[in-house]
């Protein structure tokens, strides 16, 4: 079978699997977030936490809960790394130094999983599974909770109440993430992913050389890394490492896990606003963008452009034999469109335009289909912008899902849209103007070097976590600045989303009239795709010309 037909079949199977999961999981998630019954375990949990599960919160209290929970998580994860050498299962590794420990804590709490360290040489098993993997679960649950709060804002009317964060968090973990992780993790072990608690053990090869084989509870972490759109690898090579991703099947399972929740949440959204077509429209936008970027990334990688790439005969530098161009490009597009940041190949070695596609995909703001929760709320914010733009064209007060989009909503939307690009552009500019920060560039003397820095800030601000790995980012400057960028890139938009949710929840819905723009039809899907591309395209076009476009064209 040719690479092309195998590659297309692979995409086809992925789409089929997602389609099969869409109704059951989307419906299940809707029931999880609307049910007024608690399980016994949940009741015990609420008693332990000291929360009244029936007490719905205002947007401000919801936001404070999110921030308090994340701040506590940040501090605990920082301390765990700083004290690693005194704790069991550290594999003899020293305490993590302060700027790196801050960067890593911020990164995992912000659902980014940017890693400026090499895990094999830095993190013992305890930090990995009791620290990093815990945040893989809970930071994902935070994102999903905030998305659901926004959906409730649209679904409810004349109320201040958006639900209870602690209930949403608990249910997301216990009813959604944990069961899916147990099943998915065992599937991964069945494909060959390792799962043990051993340290590295030395063997003698048949040629008499020695090799140390690492161990670790990898599958249990790998599954939530993908399912929660986190992306932090157990090993430095991430999902390119054969122990994390041993074959074509595990690769497809991992891509499926990455896309599963972001895709199915659109169904949940449709059910909760009592109009499934609204969910289909949002899914339509996500799918259109994902398909376009996947096609582009695949095309560029298969083309194999670049002087060194041409000399090699194919874009196989940084790619595994078992994946090749197609499975690597599909993974790259899915991971950059979802704020996951796991990689099964080295994006730095992609063709200029293939790597540029991954970069631009993140710049869309992670909405195709985006991170768990963050993809849905990100696209709903852009949908509000799209109805506003449409409203301007016809001179009518815009509305979305029966809620009027007034000056207050638009201010929040505008701030949301400005937040991430400001962090990316300001961060990259600061780094490029500092000789010390420029020294971290690996592919020097070409637009590719600038792309390494731009990629780092884009990845951090959009909470993706993948990298043009040539950049030596484990310096105090990058650790601190990128750490702050990740936190701001995560929590500023979240607070704005919750404020928007509070604002629309208070409103009395306006009746649908002949003048209402239908937001479930192809016209709106097209409009929203256009808004996403134009808003981000105009913002980032100048920097893209300095990096991948200058190199690739």
């Amino acid at each position: 079978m040719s690479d092309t037909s195998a590659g297309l079949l692979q995409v086809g199977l992925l789409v089929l699997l997602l389609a099969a999961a869409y109704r059951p999981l989307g419906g299940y998630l809707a029931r999880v977030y609307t049910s007024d019954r608690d399980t016994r375990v949940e009741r015990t949990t609420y008693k332990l936490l000291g929360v009244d599960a029936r007490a719905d919160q205002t947007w401000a209290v919801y936001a404070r809960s999110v921030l308090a929970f994340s701040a506590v998580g940040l501090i605990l994860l920082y301390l765990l790394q700083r004290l690693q050498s005194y704790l069991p299962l550290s594999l003899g590794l020293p305490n993590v130094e302060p700027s790196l420990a801050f960067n890593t804590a911020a990164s995992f709490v912000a659902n980014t999983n940017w890693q400026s360290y090499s895990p094999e040489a830095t993190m013992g098993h305890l930090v990995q599974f009791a620290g990093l993997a815990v945040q893989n679960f809970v930071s994902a649950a935070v994102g999903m909770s905030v998305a659901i709060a926004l959906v409730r804002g649209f679904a409810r009317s004349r109320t201040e109440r958006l639900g209870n964060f602690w209930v949403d968090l608990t249910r997301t973990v216990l009813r959604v993430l944990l069961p899916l992780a147990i099943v998915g993790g065992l599937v991964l072990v069945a494909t060959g992913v390792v799962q043990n608690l051993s340290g590295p053990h030395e063997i003698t090869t048949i040629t008499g050389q020695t090799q140390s084989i690492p161990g670790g509870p990898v599958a249990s972490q790998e599954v939530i890394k993908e399912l929660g759109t986190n992306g932090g690898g157990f090993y430095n090579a991430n999902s390119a490492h054969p122990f994390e991703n041993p074959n074509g099947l595990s690769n497809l399972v991992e891509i499926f896990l990455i896309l599963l929740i972001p895709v199915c949440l659109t169904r949940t959204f449709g059910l909760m606003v009592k109009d499934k077509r609204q969910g289909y429209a949002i899914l339509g936008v996500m799918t259109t963008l994902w398909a376009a970027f996947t096609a582009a990334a695949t095309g560029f990688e298969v083309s194999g452009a670049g002087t060194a790439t041409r000399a090699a005969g194919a874009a196989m530098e940084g790619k595994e034999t078992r994946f090749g161009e197609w499975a690597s490009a599909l993974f790259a597009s899915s991971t950059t469109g979802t704020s996951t940041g796991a990689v099964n190949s080295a994006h730095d070695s992609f063709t200029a335009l293939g790597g540029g596609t991954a970069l631009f995909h993140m710049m869309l703001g992670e909405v195709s289909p985006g991170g768990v929760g963050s993809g849905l709320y990100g696209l709903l914010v852009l949908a509000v912008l799209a109805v506003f733009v449409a409203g301007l064209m016809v001179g009518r007060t815009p509305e979305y899902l029966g809620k009027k989009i007034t000056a207050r909503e638009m201010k929040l939307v505008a701030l949301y849209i400005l937040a991430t690009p400001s962090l990316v552009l300001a961060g990259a500019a600061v780094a490029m103007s500092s000789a010390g920060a420029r020294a971290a560039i690996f592919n020097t003397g070409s637009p590719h070097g600038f792309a390494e820095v731009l990629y780092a800030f884009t990845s951090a601000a959009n909470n993706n976590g993948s990298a043009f790995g040539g950049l030596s980012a484990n310096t105090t400057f990058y650790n601190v600045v990128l750490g702050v960028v990740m936190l701001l890139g995560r929590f500023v938009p979240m607070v704005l989303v919750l404020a928007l949710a509070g604002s629309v929840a208070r409103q009395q819905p306006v009746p649908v009239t002949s003048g209402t723009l239908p937001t479930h039809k192809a016209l709106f899907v097209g409009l929203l795709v256009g808004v996403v591309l134009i808003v981000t395209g105009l913002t980032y076009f100048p920097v893209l010309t300095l990096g991948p476009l200058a190199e690739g064209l």
Partner: protein
Amino acid sequence: MMTPGRSPFGQVGVALRAMIAATILLGVLYPLAMTGAAQVLFRGNANGSMVRVAGHEVGSDLIGQTYTRDTGQKDAEGNAMMAPDPRWFQSRPSAVDYDAMGSAASQYGPNNPELLKLVEQRRAEVAKLEGVDPAQVPPDAVTASGSGLDPHISPAYAAIQVRRIARERGLSVDEVQRLVERNTTGRTLGFLGQPTVNVVTLNRDLAEAN
């Protein structure tokens, strides 16, 4: 008791208790239970799919190795200079020399002049070692993988190594060919990923053959 939510402190207390509960459940019980289940259900996989010769572990069939020998010469820094051992199938180039404790890619950009030089040099070396036309050397033979630990090569790269192995080991080309076929895996389910030849298990079979 202060109602949680009314004061920021209330939320912090809840947050702390929630993080502790999450750490116990997700950070301790979950990975331990998964490890237990994996060890019972898929013992070989869970422990790294180790490859044995006469009961001794000689590697993992998922982690590539180098098959080199000491040339007896020293480089400028006094390190022993290694060269491909012609008696074994050769793995792909690796950015970390198959050090499994430091998986990594080269991170060379597609137009990096150093990568271009490396690729040309590798092409010439492989062509010379195998006695083939440089144009016959496939891409995976001149590029380093994403993990630096790729245990596989393409069937094309295995094919150009068969004659050398047969000659060096006094085996017939057909015998070597059969071993290559035995260690070749098609795409999973017929269309997932790429066809591969596992160098670790192929060389193990070679060691057992003579």
